[in-house]
């Protein structure tokens, strides 16, 4: 009895915390099914009307496709160049390595707003403002720290004698990389790519500064729509994004195991 009570208390407290964590997400999902013209939870009646209504709002679809495109571009470029740099950092001895590591890690310390403002000013000076490419460059900088951390971690515990064996058997350095090195560090690289994708897809702060009327990513679209209207359209758009994220999470879990991905984000 003396032991059971604290344990019950602990579990009850944790349950409350889990409800707190799930609440905003559950509320968005359920209120997208309401038949009313305004957002209400619990929803009144059940309808998929706000999903079909999306047909009348092509701008959301446009923004969604743009966000997907930008996130894909960011993930691919960030992963490729981040992996290259990770190899340089782990495998070679050179001066200034610590400085370089600090430089590529610093986007995590600089407030994103300040980086967004700096980028906007710079872009308007060099005349590169408001294009998807400009946004991808900004997102590459935000995501490189994650990619490099994950890839460096998988390179550090790497047994290089396998590579040596392949070289001795006459494989060229490119062939060694693609047939030996890459398959072994694969999980780190994939995790980095997924993280880059999610970070880019979720970014509001930098995108807010680099948008124009025809380059509006989904988070920015939702953010601006929300300030003027309060109808359930937003909840249906958001629900679609949530469901897609859940699918992506299941894929990550199957391929890598979630814990592993998060270890890097925490450090």
């Amino acid at each position, binding site marked *: 009895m003396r032991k059971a009570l*604290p344990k019950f208390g*602990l579990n009850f*407290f*944790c349950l409350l*915390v*889990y409800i*707190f*964590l799930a*609440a*905003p*997400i559950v*509320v*968005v999902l359920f209120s997208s099914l309401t038949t009313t013209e305004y957002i209400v*939870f619990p929803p009144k009646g059940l309808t998929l009307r706000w999903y079909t209504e999306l047909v009348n709002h092509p701008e959301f679809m446009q923004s969604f496709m743009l966000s997907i495109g930008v996130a894909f571009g960011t993930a691919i470029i960030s992963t490729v*160049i981040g992996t*290259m*740099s990770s*190899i*340089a950092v782990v*495998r*070679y001895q*050179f001066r200034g390595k610590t400085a*370089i590591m600090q*430089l*590529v890690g610093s*986007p995590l*310390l*600089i*407030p994103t*707003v*300040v*980086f967004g*403002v*700096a980028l906007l*000013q*710079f872009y308007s000076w060099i005349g590169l403002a408001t294009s998807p490419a400009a946004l991808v*460059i900004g997102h*590459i*900088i935000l995501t*490189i720290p994650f990619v490099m951390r994950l890839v460096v971690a998988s390179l550090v515990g790497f047994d290089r004698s396998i590579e040596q064996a392949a070289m001795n058997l006459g494989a060229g350095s490119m062939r060694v990389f693609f047939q030996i090195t890459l398959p072994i560090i694969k999980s780190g690289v994939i995790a980095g790519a997924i993280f880059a994708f*999610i970070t880019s*897809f*979720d970014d*509001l*702060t930098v995108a807010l*500064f680099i948008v124009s009327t025809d380059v509006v990513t989904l*988070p920015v679209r*939702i*953010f601006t729509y*929300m300030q003027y209207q309060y109808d359930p359209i937003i*909840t249906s758009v*958001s629900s679609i994004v*949530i469901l897609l*994220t859940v699918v992506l*999470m299941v894929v990550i*879990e199957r391929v890598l195991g*979630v814990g592993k991905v*998060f*270890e890097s*984000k925490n450090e």
Partner: protein
Amino acid sequence: MQPETAYQEQELLFKQKKKNLSKKRMDYLLLLLPTLGIFIFFFLLPLFFLFITGFKTFDASSGVGNDWTLENYTKFLSDTFYLGVLWRTVKIALLTTLVAIVISFPVAYQITKANRRIKNYLTLIVLSPLLISMVIRCYGWVILLSNNGVVNNALLKFGWIDKPLTLLYTEFSVVIGMVHVLFPYMVLSIMGSLERIDPSVIRASQNLGASPIRTFFSIVLPLTLPGIFAGSVMVFSLGISSFVTPAILGGPQVKVMSFLTYEQVAVMLNWPYGSAIGFLLIFIATITIIIYSKLLTTSKKGVAIQ
């Protein structure tokens, strides 16, 4: 004859090594080039230029001037309104950190005690918010906390209140939203410390007759302090610089430093002042990290002495 061949062989080997070495030197530069290029041109350079802009004059009619001035910084540091915003930013981040510690510790404790399968599921539940779009999660809080929102409706129905409470666009809603966003970082950090505790230490304490509560307060809690500390620094520094949550759940009513920066640049078009506010924010965030690492090294020394 033989020594000569050996010598030649050695020389050949040496030359080859040298060639490999110089090739390697080129390799790492090539590998680093794309990342470094992007970082120098699109990160360091823009930030440097923005820093410079912070020392330029500004006029509402003619825009950014060419003269140098310290006015942007002195204006901020001598105006009670702006200092109030700075204080609010720090206060919200501190409150967020405290609440995060209080609700994270039991969860981290429960997860580390659970068996492996349940542990994986719980970790997934705790961490999944990180993956779901921040804008959408904040939007969920808007639905929950608005005047005719879920929380107010429930309280009215139970008759606990007569008229809706103002929950949204207050410091309260910003702290709630930020705890929700930053909670996973704290849990992971505390879990890291809890997992490193040697179970034999806890058994020893129990064998010596300490009650579970005494064991918790004199053994478990002190040993997890480094994790709590590391998590706090992370939550605090992410908290003072976060933009999305205060912008959606606080808006112009609850201005924080990041929102002020945004407003000065995007609405007032006062770039120099926006820059000054932004760099003050960077300054505070950096100071926090420096104090933290200083404290960490001294506490490590303390542990070594023990």
